[in-house]
């Protein structure tokens, strides 16, 4: 078959002139990335505020009456859904994916820029639909982010009037947006790399984002289908998920459906979803650690295969979320086994991160602090996952604060720390200016210690059996009164962490105007995005000629080299010896 070199085809770039086509209806992946990122962070702030309201209720049930029990459910639901889907998924893939993939693989843009632009606008539409549910009669849905039927669409659940329909519609629209973007990311990585950029020379950030996108393209269909079926149940009166129920003394019109089916569909999406969030974080953190430790990543190939392996395995573990739902015991055995097997590639990654730091020339810059913080929180959350993966251990812990602590450590705090690290790391490239170091360090320590203060005590509450998704705990006999003191302390820590984020926003905005000029490669980084002719990179990224790649992305501190890093586009020479990759 004819040989098609990668760089021989180029996307048809539009060449905008007016402000609007350049910065608003833009087809430039970097502008789209920033639009995605800002929108995601904006909804993330909404979710953060919701969580503070919930914490105030839990910590000081008698002093505050800000929210009603129904509102508590609605806030839990919106908080969870926004954080997982509209913040983390959109930010990692739509934001970092868009920004980094073309720059890191040496392309001028995504393969289909127009589709990429549509992806953002459709995403924005999904966010608007979601936010609209705050303003309709009955408010947003209070079904919990898992949206389990029958209660999600039964009379008595808040938001059953319109909120649940808007939620399902918004999810469907989000999936359309994700698919348009995701097809672009995958095709760009597979087909549009520059000369010399073999798959095994790509930075791990690209590997993480790429694999996560593939997971998304295969997992979101299950969510789409369950959303459609549930919409029909709610609007057309079908009974896909609804058994015959007597509620409040009345027989509902539903009959003969299967609520367990929803749980299977949901978690067939839901478990891969946690890796859609985790894999980009794995990839990015590897690059941060290697760059700021001035050392090559330990076991690059193993890291790649671990990402791919975790991605594959994540499709056969979903029912570990359903141990208490009632399943054939053999299923429990199967899913517990696969779940524990995932711990192997995950552990490989953790060892490799630590070994990358081993004897490295560690620069404790702000991105590095966040990356190291991630190793702590992730190990912590991963270990509790091994507890929950075992059926007998999970049964008493399921639906308690132990699970809350587990998934907040592992998919809340950990990816968010990486998000912060990544923003600090690439901020000089995106804006051309440096952030304020001291504010950054303060932000890290307050966030890192603060989140531990929030989630560590929750494990203990879980052991006590404190159930999740409760508005208040008065009069529950088995919960000792001292648990309330712990809850108050957690709330104080949560408010502290929430306010800490003001430091971050202030730093970002202030530095945009007043930060000192960063130069094109302030970290001495090897990967291609730091080798662009302009900083910030302009439309088309590379000037007249695409870069040519001669080596992997991890040539740090190579013996005999002139500097302690060799950019990927440096040809082998005496001053930049070839390494065997």
């Amino acid at each position, binding site marked *: 078959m004819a040989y098609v070199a990668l760089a021989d085809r180029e996307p048809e770039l539009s060449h905008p002139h007016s402000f609007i086509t350049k910065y608003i209806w833009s087809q430039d992946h970097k502008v789209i990335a920033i639009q995605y990122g800002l929108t995601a962070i904006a909804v993330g702030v909404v979710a953060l505020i919701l969580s503070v309201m919930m914490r105030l209720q839990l910590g000081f049930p008698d002093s505050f009456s800000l929210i009603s029990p129904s509102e508590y459910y609605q806030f839990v639901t919106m908080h969870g859904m926004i954080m997982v889907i509209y913040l983390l998924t959109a930010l990692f893939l739509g934001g970092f994916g868009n920004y980094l993939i073309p720059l890191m693989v040496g392309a001028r843009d995504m393969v289909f820029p127009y589709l990429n632009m549509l992806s953002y606008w459709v995403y924005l539409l999904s966010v608007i639909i979601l936010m609209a549910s705050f303003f309709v009669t009955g408010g947003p849905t209070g079904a919990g982010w898992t949206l389990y039927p029958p209660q999600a669409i039964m009379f008595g659940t808040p938001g059953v009037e319109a909120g649940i329909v808007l939620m399902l519609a918004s999810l469907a629209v989000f999936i359309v947006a994700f698919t348009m973007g995701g097809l672009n990311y995958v095709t760009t990585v597979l087909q549009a790399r520059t000369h010399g950029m073999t798959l095994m020379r790509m930075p791990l950030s690209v590997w993480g984002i790429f694999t996560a996108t593939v997971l998304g393209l295969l997992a979101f269909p299950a969510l789409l289908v369950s959303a459609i079926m549930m919409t029909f149940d709610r609007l057309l009166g*079908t009974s896909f998920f609804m058994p015959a129920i007597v509620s409040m003394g009345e027989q509902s019109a539903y009959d003969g459906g299967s609520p367990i089916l929803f749980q299977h569909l949901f978690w067939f999406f839901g478990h891969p979803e946690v890796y859609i969030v985790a894999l980009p974080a794995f990839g990015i953190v590897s690059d941060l650690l290697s760059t700021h430790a001035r050392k090559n990543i330990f076991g690059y190939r193993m890291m790649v295969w671990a990402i791919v392996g975790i991605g594959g395995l994540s499709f056969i573990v979903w029912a570990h979320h359903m141990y208490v739902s009632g399943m054939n015991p053999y299923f429990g055995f199967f899913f517990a086994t696969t779940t524990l097997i995932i711990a192997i590639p995950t552990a490989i990654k953790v060892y490799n991160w630590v070994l990358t730091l081993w004897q490295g020339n560690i620069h404790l810059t702000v991105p590095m602090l966040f990356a190291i913080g991630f190793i702590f929180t992730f190990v912590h959350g991963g270990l509790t996952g091994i507890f929950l993966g075992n059926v007998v251990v999970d049964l008493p812990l399921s639906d308690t604060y132990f699970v809350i602590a587990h998934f907040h450590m592992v998919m809340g705090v950990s990816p968010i720390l990486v998000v912060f690290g990544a923003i600090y790391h690439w901020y000089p490239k995106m804006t051309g200016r440096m952030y304020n170091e001291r504010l950054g360090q303060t932000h890290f320590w307050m966030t890192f210690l603060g989140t531990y203060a929030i989630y560590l005590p929750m494990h203990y509450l879980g052991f006590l059996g404190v159930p999740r998704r409760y508005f208040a705990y008065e009069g529950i006999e088995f919960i000792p009164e001292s648990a309330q003191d712990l809850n108050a302390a957690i709330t104080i820590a949560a408010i502290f962490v929430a306010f800490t984020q003001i430091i971050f926003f202030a730093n970002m905005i202030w530095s945009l105007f007043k930060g000192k000029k960063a130069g094109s490669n302030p970290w001495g980084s090897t990967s291609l995005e730091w080798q662009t002719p302009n900083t910030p990179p302009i439309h088309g990224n590379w000037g007249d000629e695409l870069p040519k790649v001669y080596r992997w992305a991890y040539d740090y501190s190579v013996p005999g080299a002139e500097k302690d890093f060799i950019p990927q586009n440096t040809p082998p020479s005496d001053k930049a010896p070839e390494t065997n990759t």
Partner: protein
Amino acid sequence: MAEQALSNENMVAEGFSGIAQDWSDEKQAFQVPWGKAMMWIFLLSDTFIFSCFLTGYMHVRMNTTIAWPNPSEVFALTVFGAHIPLILIAIMTFILISSSGTMAMAVNFGYRKNRKVTAALIAATALFGLSFVGMQAFEWSKLIEEGVRPWGNPMGAAQFGSAFFMITGFHGMHVSIGVIYLSIIAFKVYRGDYDKKDNYEAVEIAGLYWHFVDLVWVFIFAFFYLW
């Protein structure tokens, strides 16, 4: 490295090691145009959607408390006094499969850059698709007349109607979108857009979509009507 790889271009290995070589080399993972690669990936994702629909339907069907209506009875027509089970579905299936034939021919003529024949064959494919949708509309209205609704029906389990309207509706939507898509491509072929570019790959990409929609129907036919 780079030079070496470039000089290897004629030595493409066969089979699995060929794939490994393609993927580890500094070239496109698939030796196809971008649009085609993207269509393949999209169709993979769409396969998961239909698989979820079908497994969902099967799960529901096996769990209903009331017996499932017998499809070959429900979908029987009385033509000229003869009672023939599944006749309409058989015709619809035949038409859709024929349309895949005309589509394949269109792709072939596209490669030969035969503008007029290509356009005509794509248009024929679209017409086949349109008649499929038309017959589906007939089938829907017949069932609705007989009292089948998404929330219930006189023949048995309510989920029969729910799954029927949902799955054939979702597939019918794919066919309808395909008809519009093919009409646009046919028009562009006819106008000579692809002669100007000297590149008919858009026809093949549309063909991929159409064959997929067709293939999915075979599964729906097997799992919904024949079971």
